[in-house]
């Protein structure tokens, strides 16, 4: 009876192992999966051993060779388990080799020892068992540590596998203990069985049965058990999906990928969804940081799906290798199709360096759960879109409300601002009406008229600002962008504002480096004028303004700084808003309250920006950045100077540089002398076409320089212009200066005056001589030629008239009594011609031949003298007499 039961247990274990083994073999043969092969190899020793036991129990005679082979295979089991663990997780290579070495080293004495074993050979059993247990413990540890990194069914299965492995080790320990204790007894009592033998045998047989069940659960669970596992995992996946706090569709997919990674124990998970063009594109990825691909080739994926089992990543197709290969090179890749309701189909890519215990069926179930994620994602994206729409709506409602409020505030302010000057206009004019009439007039205080006028101007300024503002707002502001020298424009503005500056005794420091903006001249002036008048307004008497222009990369920068009251930080943005008047309570009337708002818009219309830096009590600095312009030498300005030479006598290098730049820009060649003496020397060495002269100079001053110039016959005719800080205009003009400019110099005025005097310098006067007398004609011609004139001589009035129509002459010398067409008829005809009407004519009357000759000679001589004087149409002018006198007068007046 005891024997019957005892043999039943190993039989059951054997059946179990046999079934496991056969299933594993079949599974491996079907799929050639390396994991399946290793599972098969673990089951093989167990199956063989229990087959052997069954034979022993049923007292079938077993030859020694069978025993040896069975034992050989049995003792390999721990090593094979380590190999299986290495399939499921990373196992250092040395552990693998050591396990093999321990197996060979410890089992060999037993396997190749004498059979049957003698009592003194007990150590062979002990050694083999110790080796077996050692490796088995290592394998169990490997499986257990893997189990701890997993959750759910996977963890349970790996833990079971680890425990079963330990049990198997214990079983072998009992087997060894049984064999060792039996040896001496059997040696002494060959016929009598060991009293404890049955107990050992029963114990290890039961352990064997338990092991078979454990391995069954761990590595080859029956279908119903697997379903249970995957159902619980699926439920956990679903729960985690639903519990996850997600805001958008992307997050849903990301959560799904994360959960899939944890549940399947994959190294990486990529979720792919079809794009509009049908190609699958990654929508979520969980795993080590890698480059995620834009898209994946469809062919590669189809192939993978068809394969239906993990493939080496390197064999997974070009796209996969290209995108994931670098980072996940050694992995297996599994592609699972993921139908997403209602009608799309995505895919889940699982990357595994080591194999998961989940069967492909289980994985497919998880992929199906992805469909749920799809529904969730769909819902989430709808919700997100709704939320976004709601946010947009509410923000546009807010913006509209703000705009409407701003409009109302603007109108209220506008009404207020318009009423203020109107009050003075209506009030004072009302008062005027009440004054006593004096006939059809009224005698009113002059102040009142002034008040009305000032208020009217203020009102007009306000209206203009509003119109400009409205134009900018409506985008109807037309800018005539052209290269504009902002340094000179600013200088001009400062000159224009100088009365205001003087009234408040403000000092202006200018740092005007040449800079050219692409700007509308009128609008630019408006911008800077606003800033300057603000600065003047908010700077107390005796304060200082600093105005600078500078190139700033591709832009230009204008800065107007004052040392006035300053603007508090919290007000600095508001100053650019309409009707915001901030700052000092004791301020003067702060203009229309639109100036800076308009300025900001004008700057922005230029594509520039404006900002303020300020500190209360330390002044403000407004800066404007405008796009720069490529500096092209303007044709018109170049032609103004025509390359004429200007000598600039100026000791201050900065002023000299500014003036030099301005003049050169206008087309002049400029020589600079730093002292009066140097100026005189330079002028003497090479007389310039004009001289620009400072008064305050080291050594002799400007007045002495002009005195010496005028005293030198050769230099006396060179036009001299003063450009100085010293306001002694009368003295300068009295000394013979052509004009007098007080710094800051109005650039346009100086250039205009220079241009006029340079243009007045005749290149070579063209003279038409008409005289029928060859001798006289020749004499006049020679005289004029000697004076440097370009002479055309004709014999009669007819030709003269034709010639005068053909080209322009500076002077016509004409015999009044020419026989063919006389001088008078010719003059009458010329009078009719617009081109010749204003040409001066010198008429020669030869009542007596000699007198005419004298007159002619005189005329030629004087002309020649004038020419020799070098330039100076002035001297020529009185001679030219008769007509064009008004031109001459203009030029003559100082």
């Amino acid at each position, binding site marked *: 009876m005891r024997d019957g039961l005892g043999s039943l247990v190993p039989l059951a274990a054997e059946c179990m192992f046999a079934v496991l083994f056969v299933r594993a073999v079949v599974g491996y043969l079907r799929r050639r999966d390396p994991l399946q092969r290793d599972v098969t190899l673990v089951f093989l020793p167990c199956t063989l051993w229990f087959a052997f036991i069954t034979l022993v129990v049923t007292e079938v005679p077993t030859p020694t060779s069978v025993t040896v082979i069975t034992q050989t295979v049995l003792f390999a089991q721990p090593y094979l388990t380590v190999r299986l663990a290495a399939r499921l997780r990373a196992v250092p290579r040395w552990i693998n080799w050591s396990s093999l070495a321990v197996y060979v080293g410890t089992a060999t004495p037993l396997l190749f020892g004498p059979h049957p074993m003698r009592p003194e050979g007990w150590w062979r059993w002990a050694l083999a068992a110790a080796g077996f247990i050692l490796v088995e413990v290592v394998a169990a540890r490997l499986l257990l540590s893997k189990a701890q990194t997993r959750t759910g069914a996977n963890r349970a299965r790996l833990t079971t596998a680890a425990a079963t492995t330990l049990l198997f080790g214990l079983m072998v320990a009992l087997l060894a203990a049984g064999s060792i204790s039996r040896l001496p007894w059997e040696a002494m009592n060959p016929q009598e069985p060991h009293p404890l033998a049955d107990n050992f045998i029963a114990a290890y047989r039961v352990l064997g049965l338990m092991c078979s069940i454990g391995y069954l659960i761990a590595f080859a669970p029956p279908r119903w058990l697997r379903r249970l596992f995957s159902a619980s995992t699926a439920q956990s996946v679903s729960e985690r999906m639903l519990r996850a706090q997600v805001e958008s569709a992307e997050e849903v997919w990301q959560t799904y990928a994360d959960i899939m990674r944890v549940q399947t124990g994959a190294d990486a998970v990529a979720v792919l969804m079809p794009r509009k063009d049908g190609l699958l594109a990654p929508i979520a990825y969980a795993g080590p940081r890698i480059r995620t691909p834009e898209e994946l080739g469809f062919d590669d994926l189809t192939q993978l799906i068809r394969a239906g089992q993990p493939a080496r990543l390197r064999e997974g197709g070009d796209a996969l290798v290209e995108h994931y290969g670098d980072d996940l090179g050694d992995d297996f890749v599994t592609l699972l199709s993921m139908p997403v309701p209602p009608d799309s189909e995505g895919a889940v890519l699982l990357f595994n360096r080591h194999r998961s215990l989940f069967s492909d069926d289980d994985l497919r179930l998880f992929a199906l759960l992805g469909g749920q994620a799809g529904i969730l994602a769909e819902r989430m994206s709808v919700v997100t879109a709704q939320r976004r729409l709601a946010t947009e709506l509410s923000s546009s409602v807010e913006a509209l409300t703000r705009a409407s409020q701003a409009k109302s505030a603007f109108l209220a302010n506008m*009404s207020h601002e318009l*009423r203020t000057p109107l*009050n003075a206009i209506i*009030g*004072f004019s*009302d008062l005027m009406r009440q004054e006593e009439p004096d006939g059809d007039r009224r005698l009113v*205080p002059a102040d009142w008229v002034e*008040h009305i006028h000032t*208020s009217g101007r203020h009102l007009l300024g306000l209206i203009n600002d509003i119109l400009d503002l409205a134009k900018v707002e409506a985008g109807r502001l037309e800018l005539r962008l052209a290269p504009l020298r902002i340094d000179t424009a600013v200088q001009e503005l400062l000159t224009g504002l100088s009365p205001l500056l003087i009234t408040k005794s403000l000092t202006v420091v200018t740092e005007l480096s040449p800079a050219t903006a692409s700007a509308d001249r009128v609008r630019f002036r408006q911008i800077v004028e606003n800033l300057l008048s603000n600065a003047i307004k908010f700077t107390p008497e005796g304060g200082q303004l600093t105005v600078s222009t500078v190139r700033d990369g591709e832009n230009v920068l204008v800065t107007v700084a004052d040392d006035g009251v300053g603007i508090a930080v919290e007000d600095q943005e508001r100053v650019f808003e309409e009707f915001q008047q901030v700052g000092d309570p004791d301020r003067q009337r702060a203009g229309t309250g639109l100036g800076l708002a308009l300025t900001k818009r004008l700057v922005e219309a230029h594509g520039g920006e404006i900002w303020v830096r300020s500190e209360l009590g330390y002044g403000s600095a407004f800066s404007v950045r405008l796009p720069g312009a490529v500096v092209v030498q303007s044709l018109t300005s170049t032609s103004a100077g025509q390359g004429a030479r200007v000598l600039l006598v100026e000791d201050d290098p900065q002023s000299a540089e500014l003036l030099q730049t301005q003049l050169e820009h206008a087309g002049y060649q400029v020589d600079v002398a730093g002292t009066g003496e140097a100026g005189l020397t330079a002028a003497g060495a090479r007389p310039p076409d004009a001289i620009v002269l400072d008064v305050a100079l080291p050594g002799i001053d400007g007045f002495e320089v002009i005195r010496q110039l005028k005293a030198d016959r050769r230099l006396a005719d060179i036009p001299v212009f003063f450009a100085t800080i010293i306001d002694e205009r009368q003295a300068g003009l009295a000394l013979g200066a052509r004009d007098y400019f007080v710094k800051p110099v109005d650039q346009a005025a100086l250039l205009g005056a220079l241009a006029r005097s340079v243009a007045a310098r005749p290149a070579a006067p063209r003279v038409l001589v008409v005289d029928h007398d060859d001798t006289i004609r020749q004499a006049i011609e020679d005289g004029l030629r000697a004076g440097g004139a370009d002479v055309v001589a004709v014999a009669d009035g007819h030709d003269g008239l034709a010639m005068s129509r053909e080209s322009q002459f500076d002077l016509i010398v004409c015999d009044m009594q020419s026989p063919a067409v006389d001088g008078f008829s010719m003059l009458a005809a010329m009078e009719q011609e617009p081109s010749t009407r204003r040409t001066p004519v010198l008429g020669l009357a030869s009542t007596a031949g000699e007198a005419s000759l004298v007159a002619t000679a005189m005329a030629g001589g004087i002309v020649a003298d004038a020419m020799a004087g070098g330039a100076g149409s002035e001297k020529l002018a009185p001679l030219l007499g008769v007509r064009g006198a008004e031109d001459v007068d203009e030029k003559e007046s100082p």
Partner: protein
Amino acid sequence: MTADNPRILLVEDEELNRTLVKAVLARAAIAAVRDAEVLDASSLGAARTQLSSQDVDLVLLDMNLPDGNGLSLASELAAGKVGAGRRKPSVVAVTASVLPQDRAAAIEAGCDGFLDKPYAAADLVAVVAEHLSKR
């Protein structure tokens, strides 16, 4: 001008408007108005000083003042915080802020009258005369 002449305090930051008011009042046909002594203040602070140092019959009060809104002075006067122990003056808001809400705010603050800018000379005289006659 006798000691009995009414006293008007003009609180107005714009000099032009101060000149105008004074010119209008000085030329008024009504003797009480014409003879009134016109003090002026260009800020709330100056107005408070004036009000605490002497009796004033009428305050012509601008709203947009450099150191605050004129209505705050009206409230202070109504609450007796300014010019304590002095005769309580009538307060007329003279302002270019003419929207209904501005008027409501002025009345709320305790102004006795309201004169919109721009005003005709006759309107100013009439308002001043009306309030002076109440004293």
